[in-house]
């Protein structure tokens, strides 16, 4: 097997206030793989993504992969995070502009990125003129414009309504089936994770850790029928089970009084 697109070895993350966000996290994402991280809020799934992107330093362990500023890496945040003073085209141009490429020289990659997310005709619109779903499409186009080999997505559809979410899910999966980027996708939505992923990593909180790994063995292309299939339900149930087990373990840890021996 080829070397992983990105890998974490025994990664710890402890914040300045002493909060242990991640403990001994080890995972590897293979090139071309779509991996989702699911878990309750506070389990550090977003922290994993931010560390992968080089936003913040690990407290222990090693991360192997492209570093921040690397053109191979793109990040999609939960908010669309568009520049309100810039048009759609100017927003999508941003990563290339920061590489020193003029708008004129970037026309074709920008147009290609906008076409991929079906935003033709909105080039000169301002973000405030767009709906939440369309803003997210612009955000994705901005991530795609550099042709990244690793796409990190932090609950990108979390703030959207169900209709927009399922449409963007379908579009994202279509794109992935065509281009086979490596995607690490953070979500708290089990259905979304199962529908999109090759592999779902289940996390638990306090401290953030991996509790299970579920390979979604369903063929591509996946269509709407897959979402209602028994196989889909089976995977959702399995992940829900792991999530519940992880939470019980967390409760055990936090509610059991520490033995006097470990107290200072």
């Amino acid at each position, binding site marked *: 097997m080829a070397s992983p697109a990105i890998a974490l070895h025994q990664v710890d993350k402890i914040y300045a206030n002493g909060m242990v966000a991640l403990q001994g996290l080890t995972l590897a994402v293979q090139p071309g793989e779509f991996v989702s991280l699911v878990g309750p809020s506070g389990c550090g799934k977003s922290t994993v993504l931010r560390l992968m992107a080089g*936003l913040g330093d690990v407290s222990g362990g090693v991360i192997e992969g492209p570093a921040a*500023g690397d053109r191979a890496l793109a990040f999609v945040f939960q908010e669309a995070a568009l*520049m*309100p003073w810039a048009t759609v085209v100017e927003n999508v141009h941003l990563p290339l502009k*920061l590489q020193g490429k003029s708008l004129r020289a970037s026309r074709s990659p920008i147009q290609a990125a906008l076409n991929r997310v079906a935003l033709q005709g909105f080039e000169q*619109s301002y973000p405030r003129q767009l709906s939440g779903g369309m803003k997210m499409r612009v955000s994705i186009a901005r991530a795609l414009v550099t042709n990244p080999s690793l796409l990190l997505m932090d609950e990108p559809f979390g703030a959207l309504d169900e209709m927009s979410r399922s449409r963007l899910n379908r579009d994202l999966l279509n794109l992935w089936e065509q281009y086979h980027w490596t995607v690490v996708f953070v979500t708290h939505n089990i259905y979304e994770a199962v529908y999109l992923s090759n592999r779902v990593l289940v996390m638990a909180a306090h401290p953030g850790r991996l509790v299970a790994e579920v390979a979604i063995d369903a063929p591509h292309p996946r269509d709407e029928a897959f979402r209602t299939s028994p196989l889909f339900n089976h995977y959702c149930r399995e992940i829900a089970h792991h999530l519940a087990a992880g939470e019980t373990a967390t409760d055990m840890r936090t509610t059991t009084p520490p033995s006097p021996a470990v107290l200072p």
Partner: protein
Amino acid sequence: MTVKSPPPSLGTDVSRSEGAIAAPTQNRLRALWHPDVIAPIIVGVMALALWEGAVQLFNVPPYLLPGPILVWQTLLTEWPDLFRSLMVTLQITVVAFLLATVSGLLLAVLFTQSKWIERSFFPYAVILQTTPIVAIAPLIIIWFQDSTFVALVICAWIVAFFPIVSNTTLGLNSADHTLQNLFHLYGASRWQTLWHLRLPSAMPYFLGGLRISGGLALIGAVVAEFVAGTGGARSGIAYQILMSSYNLQIPRMFAALAMTTVLGVLIFVGLTWLSNRLLRHWHESAVRREN
């Protein structure tokens, strides 16, 4: 390279203000009838009428309180003198305001480049702002004896520059955190982040600072002129106000005062227009809405 997804027209709400550009002259005429315009005009006319009525009814002598009609007549007869003086004051105001804009913007950028610079110098900007200009104006005028113009510009600048510094500093520090992360991810240099992210984010704050400072520059200029009490050919509007009050030409004083006020309002309106013009595409304060 097409995607199997429905056209973007579905479920999108693109609101383009097409109505706003149709028949502009007609709209402008209608805008004059807008309550925002009509209501204050009615209040103003009523207040003037009440004032004139009271002055005539109680036979108030004009050296105590002239009626608005007398003030208007004085304004017309004294216009050449007063207008020349107003232009002198305007010149001081404009130069001080431009200096305040440039220095305020540069200082704010400097502040946000290093926490240490901000820590070290910001308190002095505050001190400069809180020092009463009336108290230090005589000193400044003595220091710059050779050129009263320079002294007056400095006084007006002291008053005008602080809102620009503090507002712009606030704006430069208010850039969206996620966007800052994004710039970092794409390896943006300090300069790129300043130019493409921080400065545009600070724009509404900067323009808000300008709107405050425009009026303050005028006030600063007038106050300094009062203190200077300067004579000679290049005397400003404050000199006219002072002289009129010494000579008990109270209607003339009112006329000069009214001109100063109108100038202040014009400066504010002009800067508001500029602000709306620059921000109309994206900032809440300037976006036209139909609901």
